[in-house]
């Protein structure tokens, strides 16, 4: 299952400290990791904590001492961590975390949507959205490398149940090969009694501004590094991660822009619609932060229309991928109509017929008449 793919990624990445609190639908991630720690499959310290806030705090302390650190959470747990997510990125601690996309309460839900992770978008974390279990495992290993190189934490994100609890065949790489790809974490600065420092202490206006400037400047290097790391990984394991996945976008009149597992569903819909002579394509965005503005712009430019599909909402505005895509192409695409669709909140199924409905709407209308087109709401 997707959750175990996360655990295996953390194991093969030789995590040294794991601190986590179980929460549905993430539980199996830490369940398996705690077993691995207990039976010494993984030589790591497993810290049991009383909340997600403490889980991240423990990860930060461990990371500061130079340990490779992993945790996983979901939804309410992630949002409880919110303060410490800023501490991780601001302190330049390359923690890698799995997050299972689960809708925020109330109403209490354990099913998938993206509002938990997307509401953490400004915390300075790299965000990867995965569509299958193999990608989950591969992403965790690469996330360690990317994060540790630039000292920026990473979130590896998968949909509740449709990925977290779905069994698929996954190729588990050999440990020696992963070791070859991912050397041990050796930060230049660490917390040690031999050379005491105050970390994250009072920082006056004279000093603070540059810290944020440097974080952003390094964030701007992430995209190129993911590409480079991805090629190194491909050379050893034959699979390339990349920033986006294009499916028949080259000659498409209408391009769907998707993320997570609905990206796979969209591919099925695209293939079906193509058989009926409708020229559609799918662009699945794998990395949301930093947002791949240029890549998206260059692909979108070729289409006649674009349909961004969001499984999330920024209340008072609209879908969050929609916002980003519009900002990516603003002033540069001669007014290609970009439609924003919201669907699947709280785990309502997104099926190929959802995409049929979206395609039909986008074909019928010349340009978007509203900022949100709701698909599947019982109006």
């Amino acid at each position: 299952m997707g959750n175990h793919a996360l655990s295996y990624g953390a194991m093969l990445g030789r995590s040294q400290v794991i601190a986590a609190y179980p929460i549905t639908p993430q539980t199996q991630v830490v369940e398996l990791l705690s077993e691995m720690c207990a039976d010494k499959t993984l030589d790591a310290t497993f810290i049991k904590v009383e909340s997600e806030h403490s889980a991240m705090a423990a990860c930060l302390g461990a990371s500061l001492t130079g340990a490779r650190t992993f945790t996983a959470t979901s939804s309410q747990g992630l949002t409880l961590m919110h303060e410490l997510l800023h501490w991780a990125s601001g302190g330049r601690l390359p923690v890698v975390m799995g997050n299972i996309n689960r809708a925020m309460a109330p109403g209490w839900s354990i099913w998938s949507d993206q509002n938990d992770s997307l509401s953490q978008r400004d915390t300075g974390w790299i965000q990867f959205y995965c569509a299958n279990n193999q990608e989950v495992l591969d992403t965790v290993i690469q996330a360690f490398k990317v994060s540790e190189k630039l000292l920026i934490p990473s979130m590896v994100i998968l949909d509740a149940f449709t990925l977290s609890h779905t069994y698929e065949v996954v190729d588990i790489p050999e440990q020696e090969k992963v070791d070859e790809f991912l050397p041990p974490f050796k930060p230049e600065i660490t917390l040690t009694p031999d050379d005491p420092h105050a970390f994250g202490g009072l920082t006056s206006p004279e000093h603070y501004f540059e810290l944020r400037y440097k974080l952003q400047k390094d964030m701007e290097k992430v995209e190129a590094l993911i590409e480079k790391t991805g090629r190194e990984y491909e050379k050893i394991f034959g699979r390339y991660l990349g920033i986006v996945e294009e499916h028949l976008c080259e000659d498409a009149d209408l391009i769907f822009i998707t993320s997570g597992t609905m990206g796979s569903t969209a591919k099925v819909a695209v293939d079906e619609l193509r058989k009926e002579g409708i020229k559609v394509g799918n662009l699945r965005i794998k990395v949301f932060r930093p947002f791949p503005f240029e890549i998206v712009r260059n692909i979108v430019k070729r289409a006649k229309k674009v349909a961004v599909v969001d499984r999330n909402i920024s209340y008072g505005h609209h879908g969050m991928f929609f916002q980003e895509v519009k900002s990516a192409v603003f002033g540069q695409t001669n007014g290609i109509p970009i439609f924003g669709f919201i669907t699947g909140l709280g785990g309502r199924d997104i099926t190929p017929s959802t995409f049929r409905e979206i395609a039909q709407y986008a074909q019928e209308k010349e340009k978007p008449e509203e900022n949100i087109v709701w698909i599947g709401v019982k109006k």
Partner: protein
Amino acid sequence: MKKKKQVQKIDFKSEKEFPLMPMSVGSMLFNKTGAWRNIKPVIDLENCIQCGICWKFCPDVAIIIEDEWPVIDYDYCKGCGLCAEECPSKCIAMVEEEK
């Protein structure tokens, strides 16, 4: 006990000279929090029994032991009064600051 680490304020012209993490920037060297104080502790050394409790309790590490006697670092003492409260021989008085 190890020698106290010397801290320096980081002065920089370019961000390149600045650490990646907010780490030992030396801001406490010039941010003298003693200026926040309204009342200040004054130790009557005649009655001091050198127990070191004030030194242990001071939340701002503003009491230093010099030659076995407590000395208050007024550059950083915020005047919270914890030392006076905890002193078993009641030899620390909190007195009004004067301009």
